[in-house]
């Protein structure tokens, strides 16, 4: 029960919740280790935050409950970076640009590109490198 786990989340902060120090409370009150990959406040004063949270499952659950009280939308499935399989032609222009090998060739025979979301740190280098627009950011 006290084993620590790491989970990736995308938080969407509606306009009214951008100025509150929510991450501070995650660390201070819920004993969590927070690793922020990417954060952005839009001109509409909405905020996006992609982060890893490490802690016991119990602490993470309590923390998420706390976060939800601020009307923050929490997603574990939507990632900040999307790889569109239909647009990908498996050319390999991204291979040397992706620093974590989240985009890689898994089967050397077919040479198809695959995307491992858990390895993606959302550096967005693939968006610049892809000639076919297969990678894009939700914010």
């Amino acid at each position, binding site marked *: 029960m006290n084993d620590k786990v790491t989970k990736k989340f995308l938080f969407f902060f509606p306009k009214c919740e951008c100025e509150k120090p929510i991450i501070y409370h995650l660390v201070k009150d819920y004993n969590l280790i927070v690793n922020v990959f990417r954060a952005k406040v839009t001109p509409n004063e909405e905020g996006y935050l992609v982060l890893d949270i490490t802690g016991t499952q119990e602490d993470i659950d309590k923390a998420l409950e706390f976060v939800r009280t601020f009307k923050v939308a929490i997603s574990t499935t939507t990632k900040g970076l999307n790889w569109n399989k239909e647009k990908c032609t498996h*050319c390999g*222009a991204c291979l*040397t640009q992706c620093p974590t090998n989240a985009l890689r060739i898994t089967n050397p025979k*077919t040479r*198809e590109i695959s995307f491992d979301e858990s390895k993606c740190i959302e550096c967005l280098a693939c968006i610049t490198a892809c000639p076919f627009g297969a990678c894009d950011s939700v914010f």
Partner: protein
Amino acid sequence: MKTYEEINKKIESGKAVVLTAEEVLDYVNKKGLESAAKEIDVVTTATFGPMCSSGCFINFGHSKPRIRISEAWIEDVPVYAGIAAVDVYLGATQLRYNDPANMEYPGLFKYGGGHVIEDLVGGKSLQLFALSYGTDDYPLKELRTWFTINDLNQAIMVNPRNCYQNYNVAVNASDKRIYTYMGILEPNMGNANYSSAGRLSPLLNDPLYETIGIGTSVWLAGAHGHVYAEGTQHTGDVPRNKLDIPTSGAGTLALTADMKKMNPKFVRGVSLRGYGVSLALGIAIPIPILNPTVLKRTCISDRDILAPVVDYSSDYPNNTGKILAHVTYEELRNGTITIKGKRIPVGSMSSYAMALEAAHLLADEIRRKDFLLSKPIAMLPKSNKLNSLKIKRRT
């Protein structure tokens, strides 16, 4: 040993033995060259990658009243109108009107000629804006309308240069990142990019142009087309290895096919950061196994093919002709090459997965009796040299 007519008869009877260029080596190793040459009728080769010298002729049909188009734009991408009244040529690398290009370096080049061609083949509704100076017989001076490929009389792809026999491996020896048609190249040879289907590539499986010639039937993005000429910049007079495989660019093909019959999956607009737009195409070409020599040519592996490594920060732009090293496609596909003692990670601009799919699709069509081979009406030149452009005073 076999003629084109005999192979076509076997295809029509549904008994043709067809293998892809990937499958043929193992088959020949198992059966022996002589008996495999008797059995195998066709080997399919293929490639998929950006091919800048591509484009299409379009005929819109005549409007009421008539217009003799002198300038025109499709989705704001300019097309060439210096031909008959409602004919235009749309080129793959044409930028959209008002594209800032590299004024905001490195430019995004989100949409251009290649993307219009992709959208046309994809059946999308596109905007035509056309101007004219007006004549007695063609009075209309301005026209704006929307059309799809089905509204056109003809949409014929006519590509002056496709299927480069071999290609450079690009690196960047400078201390700044550069943006090229070979992708993003990191400083101090931080990465390398190649662009070829290697052992699957058409002209690497027919290195001396013994079966692929003018008139050869090809699978151009799913449509049945032809080689209509040698490709621009074609040269047969290049260094070759002991299997006669060129160790640099060499041969090219000029291809044509009906765009109305193309598969949109193999016609893809390309945006190259800091460079421009282009069009990636999937092309498959059948090689008739006329005799054991032709078959042996198709039995290449990636370790037999050498590609030149070129510095795209200085030697390529200055056209010095300098080659840093040669590497094999086996090394390239393994993901790292070593140049001057430095291990360099490798990416690519061409898609082996899509090329393989094209080779299989063509093989299936031949097996289903849907695709016949054609004997060339003329062969490609084997000994012509390339000229370079001399910048000089008027003489």
